[in-house]
């Protein structure tokens, strides 16, 4: 949640991959994230059961060899639903982060390069957006424009914009007075060229770290919205919706609530570990402390 305002002074990216995979946090996070992503991809080709077939006889079966994670109140296989639900969670979070970066980073860089009223306006705009509790507004947006995955993406994406704008601005602001930027200005390069050649590459790693954090938050937010019935609509399974369905059957079929929740926890944990590891690797200030 807290982002350092100064960009990391990472060495050029020759040995970064080696450093990264030597980092326990990064490695664990990377493996978890890769597994979840693989699971989501696999679900396009194969799932243990076809979840569009409702088999009443198999209702609320506990864990067994046939259904490793049990079945739900319609007799659908929970493992299969979690696999397909992963697609939804990942897609929503990826696009929401994409919206946030795509709009926020240019805004933040622009504000830092121009300064003056542009910068002031951006800061005030951020104040206004941050004054709305994010989930409340997401609830409003999806409720107003109708529930569904697309509106959930937009609702979560909008709140990523000021986050990335702020990170990009803070990083860029601390780079502009650097001597190498002054040297580029003395070489006659304009604001756009300097931003592209010097600013963006040097704030890329902070943006990447923030990206993993927002990705994790996006997964949580999507789960919250679908829990309220405002995310992806049935029959498309989503982890949040599965939890909502499970709530009233907690006493008879606790597995129905436990496994989708675990799926969320593991995914978010993986992303956070990935982000922590990336920060350790990319920010030599932390590396030195170790």
């Amino acid at each position, binding site marked *: 949640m807290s982002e350092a305002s100064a960009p990391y002074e990472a060495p050029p990216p020759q040995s970064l991959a080696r450093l990264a995979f030597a980092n326990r946090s990064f490695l664990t996070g990377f493996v978890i994230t890769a597994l979840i992503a693989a699971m989501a991809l696999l679900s396009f080709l194969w799932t243990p059961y076809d979840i569009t077939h409702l088999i009443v006889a198999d209702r609320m079966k506990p864990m067994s060899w046939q259904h490793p994670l049990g079945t739900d109140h319609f007799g659908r296989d929970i493992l299969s639903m979690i696999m397909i639900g992963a697609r939804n969670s990942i897609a929503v979070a990826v696009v929401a982060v994409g919206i946030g970066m795509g709009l926020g980073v240019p805004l933040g860089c622009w504000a830092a390069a121009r300064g003056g009223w542009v910068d002031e306006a951006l800061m005030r705009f951020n104040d206004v957006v941050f004054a*709305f509790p994010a989930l409340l507004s997401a609830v409003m947006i999806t409720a107003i424009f109708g529930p569904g995955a697309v509106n959930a993406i937009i609702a979560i994406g909008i709140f990523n914009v000021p986050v990335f704008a702020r990170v990009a601005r803070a990083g860029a602001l601390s780079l502009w007075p650097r001597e190498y930027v002054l040297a580029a200005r003395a070489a006659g390069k304009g604001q756009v060229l300097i931003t592209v050649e010097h600013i963006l590459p040097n704030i890329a790693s902070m943006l990447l770290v923030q990206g993993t954090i927002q990705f994790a938050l996006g997964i949580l937010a999507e789960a919250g919205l679908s829990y309220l019935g405002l995310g992806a609509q049935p029959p498309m399974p989503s982890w949040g919706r599965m939890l909502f369905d499970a709530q009233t059957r907690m006493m008879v079929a606790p597995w129905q609530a436990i496994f989708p929740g675990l799926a969320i926890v593991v995914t978010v944990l993986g992303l956070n570990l990935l982000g922590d590891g990336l920060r350790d690797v990319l920010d030599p200030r932390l590396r030195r402390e170790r």
Partner: protein
Amino acid sequence: MIAFLTKRIGIGLLTLLAASMVVFGVLEILPGDPAQLMLGMNATPEALAAMREQMGLNAPLLARYAGWIGGLLAGDFGRSFTYSSPVIDLILERAVVSLPLALIALALSTAIAIPVGIFSAARRGRAGDTVSMGIAQLGVAVPNFWFALLLVYVFAVWLRLLPSGGFPGWSAGLWPGLTALLLPAVALALPQAAILARVTRSAMLEVLGEDYIRTARAKGMPRRYVLWRHALRNAMIPVLTIMGLQFSFLLAGTIIIENVFYLPGLGRLVFQAITQRDLIVVEGVVILLVASVVVVNLIVDILYAVVDPRLRIRA
């Protein structure tokens, strides 16, 4: 100090003004006619027109906005058509659930997180640090409503120690009220506590690497003294920032948590009002929540200045 405060209050008011326009504007462009919603699909055109007139929907946009703001300032939040009662009454009735809930959660999260964060920073790299930060890493990843479901399962269904939901009202006594809020507050607080503990730890570590910490140690001050008397106060700035943000999270979190526990609070009120298109209620609650976020941010700004003398002169 005065200049600093004036500027912050000014920014807060501007933010509030802009937010009110956003709220009003968004609800204004909503599909669906409020008069129609109120009277149902079978209403005659005449009745609809009369209703529109009565609700003031025919006035120009700006006039309606001004009327709405004027009403808010006078404490008149309008009248809900689904509950047929003044919005302000609804809000007050629900606030006595949500406000204690958010405050208990905030207190709980702070009381757990800050000592854990300091403890971890002081023992960095040792077993205590590793274990508590491992738990925090896990806590950050847990969605609060799922955690709430687990709490209900363990404490209400299995151990039968606490109620699984609902709210008896404060008239039933302080104790039943508090027990009804306990599980929701814990569910809200723990994920936030995990975040805050991590922030506290990293802020402390950052400060402990500063030159002035070395100066204090060179003075002969013991490690523990330096930790509490020199490092903690400097580490408070990022911690306060996160606490300010968390208040906003907690407010929003009540929407979900109140739904899990069937608590008659503001979150549930606004959620139901949205699904029922009771716009006047939505407007009122949202603007109130935004105002409380602005006020909390202002308090955080003032606390910054209390903690850090450098901010007292900068306007």
